[in-house]
C-alpha cells in the first residue's frame, strides 16, 4: 500500500494521535485528559500555522 499525504494532512494526523496519547498519559481525571488532549492538539496545529507563516515571511 502506498499512501500520499500533503504536508498539512500529515501534520494534522500526527497531532490527533499524539494528542490522544498525551492527554491520556499526562493527566489523571477524564475531564483533565480531554482538555489537555484538546490543548495539545491546538498547540500542534497552531504550531503548524505559525511555522507556515514564519516560512512565508522568510521566503519574501
Amino acid at each position, binding site marked *: 500500500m502506498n499512501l500520499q499525504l500533503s504536508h498539512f494532512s*500529515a501534520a494534522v494526523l500526527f497531532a490527533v*494521535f*499524539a494528542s490522544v*496519547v498525551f492527554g*491520556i498519559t499526562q493527566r*489523571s*481525571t477524564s475531564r483533565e485528559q480531554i482538555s489537555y488532549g484538546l490543548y495539545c492538539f491546538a498547540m500542534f496545529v497552531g504550531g503548524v500555522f505559525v511555522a507556515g507563516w514564519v516560512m512565508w515571511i522568510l521566503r519574501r
Partner: protein
Amino acid sequence: MANSSTTKETAPTQPATAMSVLAPAIGWLIPGAGHLIQKRWIRGLLIMGSIVIMFLLGLALQGRVYRPNGGDILDILGFVGDVGAGGLYIVTRALDLGQGAIAHATADYGTKFIIVAGLLNFISAADAYHIAIGKKP
C-alpha cells in the same frame, strides 16, 4: 550550636507486584494492552488505536524501519524509537517491511510516524506502570 539532624525523609517505596511488572511489559509488546489488562478499557483502546494507526500510516507512507546498528547517532536513536512499538516492530521486521522509499519526499513523514508511534508507546507503557503501582487512578 544548631541541631544538625541528618535524618532524611524518603519517599515510601512501592511494593513490586506482578501487575507492576506485567502491565508495562504487555503494554510495550501490544500498545494499549497494559491499560486493558487493568480494566482501563477506553484508555487502552484509544492508546491502541492511536499507536497502531500511526505506525501503519508510517508504513503506508513508505517510511523506513531502522535495523539495529552502530553507525550514525541518528540511526541509533531511530532504532531506539522504533523498538518502542514492541510487537508492531517485531512483526514488521519479520515480514521485512519498512524498507523506505527515497523516491518520495513524503516517505520521510512515514519514518517519523513510525518513530513517534514507538516513543508514544514507551510513554503509555510507563503510564500503565503508574496505574499498576497506584500512583495514578
